[in-house]
């Protein structure tokens, strides 16, 4: 509802990533408008998101008008995190199911139109793991930690390759089905054409014979 009542442009930012994803980007939010970011998260993976408004004047404190509202929803539509009139915040959850999780930001109307820059960092999967805590245990573990991260990255690459392979198989099956459908449909259309012509001919013949014109 709130999304639908947005003026003019509703920019939907959809993140399409499977397993490990990280996002630290800035986008501009106009007052009265909504921007949504959604991410494809696998079930049972950790997700952490942090957002804050970028202060346009470093020297001065943040003015009150630079506040926005946030809502994070699951693919089912359940609201996982909401915040109103905030300038910074964070959320974390473990994804219960596969699908598109959406985080929407909207800024209220303001009489001179304000454009605020929002910095949003959304990490899930491999990048959501808090590696710095693990690293603090000892210096020797640091290289091992880095190599562990690399291993996790390689595993996620491997899984993504499986996904791409599956998709390619599905695509091939789809094309095969389309081709065979077209094949049978062309025969069907030939048959239909001939039968319609035949019925027309037979019908008109009996009609004219009844009318004693033939």
């Amino acid at each position, binding site marked *: 509802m709130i999304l639908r009542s947005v003026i003019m442009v509703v920019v939907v930012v959809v993140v399409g990533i499977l397993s490990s994803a990280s996002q630290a980007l800035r986008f501009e939010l106009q007052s009265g408008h909504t921007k949504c970011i959604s991410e494809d998260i696998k079930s049972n993976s950790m997700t952490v998101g942090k957002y804050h408004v970028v202060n346009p004047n470093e020297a001065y404190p943040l003015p009150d008008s630079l506040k926005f509202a946030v809502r994070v929803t699951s693919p089912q539509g359940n609201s996982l995190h909401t915040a109103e009139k905030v300038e910074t915040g964070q959320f974390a959850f473990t994804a219960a199911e596969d699908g598109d999780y959406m985080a929407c930001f909207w800024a209220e109307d303001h009489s001179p139109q304000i454009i605020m820059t929002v910095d949003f960092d959304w990490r899930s999967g491999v990048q959501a793991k808090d590696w710095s805590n693990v690293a603090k245990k000892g210096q020797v573990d640091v290289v091992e930690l880095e190599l562990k991260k690399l291993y996790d*990255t390689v595993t996620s690459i491997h899984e993504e390759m499986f996904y791409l392979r599956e998709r390619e198989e599905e*695509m091939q099956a789809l094309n095969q089905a389309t081709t065979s459908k077209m094949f049978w449909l062309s025969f069907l259309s030939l048959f239909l054409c001939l039968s319609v012509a035949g019925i027309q001919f037979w019908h008109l013949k009996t009609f004219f014979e009844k009318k004693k014109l033939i």
Partner: protein
Amino acid sequence: MERKWRKISGLIGLLLLNFMNNVSSLSLTITKVECVYEIVRSEGDIVSGNFVVVDHHIFWSSDHPGIDFSITSPGGDILHNLKGTSGDKFSFKAPRSGLYQFCFHNPLSTPETIALYIHIGHIPNEHNLAKNEHVDPINVKIAELREALEAVTTEQKYLKARDAVHRRTNESTKKRVIGYTVGEYILLTIASVLQVVYIRRLFSKSVGYNRI
């Protein structure tokens, strides 16, 4: 003592490496102009990425001009400028640190969806550090390895986006083929029924007239 310093600086260096890598993957719907900003932390970082126009059906009518894409450095120079594309890869070495702008421009007013992926990779090397610090070669090698893996991930994102576009095209083709064929049958049947009805009417009245 020196060894301990080296180990600590190595630890700090590696911890810094944790935050040095930046990936951002998203797809935007652009009506006119949409810009995404990314911060490049140090000069010499390699920024690589790709984007694919997901609503590929706009290109079936050949007079669609395509989407324009440009990358602007913090100094205001345009590093990359592509006009009328349906997707492309890009990679450049950042000439300076700061905020880089990735902008899309849609010449027509219908909203188009674009899947974008940006990766900013940093490899520590000797030149950037102060005299007392020393980069362990193993850190450099690990960073290079990580960058190589990220390059594979970038390619995978591109393939995934293109596969999604391809799939949409194929599914739409299938639906349209079946839809148009069935529609054709129905139209054919209706046309022939109308023909017969018209001929019947033609002959049922004029027989009477001819008999005067």
